[in-house]
């Protein structure tokens, strides 16, 4: 029963924002409160799914949430919650600056909530096809959000995003069709033939050759949405041009949702083809992503693009974790959770920085810690978190990842990835230190937002710290049962 409010509250928020005319302030508050509610519901959902139970809803088990879904639902709802709550500051300001008319404000709210809804749907849909539809729908919802500001850059970014994203997702549909074809050809048409649970159950009867083919299409297709190299090309553009709350959600939540789709298919393919195939694919593409991110971060001149490439890196790392087998999966999931917390934080703050300094160039920002001590400090903490330093969660998950890599018997690959991680560390830190320190420009306004505004960000950093020191017992069992979902 939790699934209805989970999916319902963003829909309700979307409807509210679309229907209430003229736009009222309380709509924003309601929207934010509903996203908090969604997060709470996601937590409750996760609690229900702790011990491997699945919640099913609707005809033909239309929706089904097991522990793997719960992990991603948590991630999506959490990211959405932080972004919408903090995003209010962004919206208030854009509005008072007159950069955001009422019409667009309404559209922003409506589309954001639709976006959240589609992501939640993607992770709770039982049917592969519906999941595909939901993921495709995220593209449509976000395309307008990226182009909200209607600058040339925003239009360019949206076009690239929508074109590359649509093509990718279309390829994923080819994979889906091939999988369905395999199923129909081998098992015969049944009810719920495209349902996960059914696919996994009969996977050993499927044809391995076709499943391989299908997985390649799925990997490239959803991988495009996930920002895996070399299909990542839209990502830096979209993330850097989108409004900060949207960048935060896209990076923290959307990319993992695409990976979720890959993971679901991996479970099916593994059960059919046997271990090794998907792992190798994922490892190749993961390592490639990390390397490409490293190459592009070395001389990166824009800080939002920098954060975007860092997303490429982390998605690549998660992919590697998926490839490292049962030990790597919980690491990768933790990695995505921590990454969501850290990346939403820094993306949201990057919006503040952009507003204050009016430039996206690293060289244009200096003395951040002096201009905005609180925001700068939180930004620094978020970046340190992203770099995988303790006591933040990514340290722990990267630790687990590397351990899994070595334990799985890929010391050279893991070593290579470590080298790339080092390069990224050095480059990123160099860029960020240029922003944080030094003397601020002359005419810049100093001071933070009211401290209370930073509460959501502080909370998400607090979660990040907790994830970096102790894995709470419930989360661990959730992850364990998620591993069972994938590896049986």
């Amino acid at each position: 029963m939790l699934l209805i409010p989970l999916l319902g509250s963003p829909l309700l928020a979307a409807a509210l924002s679309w229907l209430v005319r003229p736009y009222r302030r309380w709509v924003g508050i309601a929207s934010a409160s509903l996203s908090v509610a969604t997060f709470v519901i996601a937590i409750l959902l996760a609690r229900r799914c702790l011990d491997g139970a699945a919640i099913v809803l609707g005809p033909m088990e239309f929706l089904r949430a097991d522990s793997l879904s719960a992990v991603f639902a948590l991630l999506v709802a959490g990211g959405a919650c932080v972004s919408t709550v903090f995003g209010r500051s962004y919206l208030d300001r854009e509005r008072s600056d007159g950069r955001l008319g009422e019409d667009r404000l309404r559209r922003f709210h409506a589309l954001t909530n639709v976006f959240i809804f589609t992501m939640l749907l993607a992770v709770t849909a039982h049917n592969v096809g519906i999941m595909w539809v939901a993921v495709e729908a995220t593209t449509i919802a976000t395309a307008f959000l990226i182009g909200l500001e209607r600058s040339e850059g925003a239009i360019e970014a949206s076009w690239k995003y929508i074109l590359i994203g649509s093509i990718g997702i279309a390829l994923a549909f080819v994979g889906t069709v091939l999988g369905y074809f395999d199923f129909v050809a081998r098992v015969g048409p049944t009810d719920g033939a495209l349902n996960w649970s059914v696919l996994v159950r009969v996977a050993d009867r499927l044809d391995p050759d076709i499943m391989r083919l299908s997985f390649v299409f799925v990997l490239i297709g959803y991988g495009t949405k996930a920002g895996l190299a070399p299909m990542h090309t839209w990502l830096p553009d979209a993330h850097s041009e989108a409004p900060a709350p949207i960048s935060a959600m896209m990076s923290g939540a959307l990319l993992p949702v695409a990976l979720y789709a890959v993971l679901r298919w991996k479970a099916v393919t593994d059960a059919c083809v046997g271990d090794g195939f998907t792992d190798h694919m994922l490892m190749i593409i993961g390592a490639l992503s990390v390397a490409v991110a490293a190459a592009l971060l070395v001389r990166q001149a824009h800080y939002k693009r920098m954060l975007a490439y860092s997303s490429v890196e982390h998605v690549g790392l998660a992919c590697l974790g998926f490839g490292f087998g049962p030990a790597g999966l919980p690491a990768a999931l933790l990695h995505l959770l921590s990454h969501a917390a850290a990346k939403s934080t820094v993306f949201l703050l990057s919006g503040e920085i952009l507003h204050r300094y009016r430039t996206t160039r690293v060289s244009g920002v200096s003395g951040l810690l002096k201009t905005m001590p609180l925001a700068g400090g939180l930004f620094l903490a978020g970046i340190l978190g992203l770099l995988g330093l303790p006591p933040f969660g990514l340290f722990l998950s990267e630790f687990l990842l590397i351990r899994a890599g070595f334990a799985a018997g890929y010391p050279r690959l893991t070593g290579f990835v470590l080298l790339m991680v080092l390069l990224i560390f050095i480059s990123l830190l160099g860029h960020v230190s240029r922003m944080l320190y030094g003397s601020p420009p002359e005419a810049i306004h100093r001071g933070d937002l009211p401290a209370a505004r930073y509460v959501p960000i502080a909370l998400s950093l607090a979660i990040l710290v907790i994830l970096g020191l102790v894995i709470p017992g419930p989360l661990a069992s959730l992850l364990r049962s998620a591993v069972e979902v994938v590896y049986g």
Partner: protein
Amino acid sequence: MSVEIFTTVMTLASSLVLLAGIAILWRRSLPAYIHAFARQSFFIVVAVLVLAARERDRELVLVALLMFALKVVFMPAALRRVQRHVGADADVRPYVNTPVSLAIAGILTLVAYAVAQPVVALSHLPTRGGMPLALASVFVGLFIVASRRSALSQIVGFLVMENGIALLAVLATYGVPLIVELGVFLDVLLGFLVMQVFVYRIRDAFETTDVDRLRSLRH
């Protein structure tokens, strides 16, 4: 209808679909692109109707009707309107010239055969002969997107790709479940509309639909 005739008809339809896609590669004007796309969609509708008739599947008939309305009527019309509004742009100076494009299309078809080989091997369906062709039109669509400069021709390329996928779904599995099909239609429609909106925006912002000009975001 005997199996042989059915097979022949379906393969013929698939070939026509592919040829209609390849036709885009040698045509030089946007209206011609749109026309080719409409024709391709029409061939698919025909194929679906034939299949529906053979399988006596009402759902497929519904799908065929939807497809006709959307891809043969609405989308080409919308595209023509957009094209009139934003201008022809005499785009059509592709990155890759026509002979090479055609050669690549041939290679892509071969690749599609190679890739689809296990699928064909596994399938007992009479439609299996068309599956590589459907995959080939996916590839050709992709190639169109990659090699054409105008935003509108990229949309057309994308739609050609979609058509290929739709054909593949029909040939391989006699149609995915209806709800999925409906979702897909909705997505394609919405995606198409969004793209259309952005074509206007690109035109407004850059005074051209040549997406090659969209290169300020890089590195």
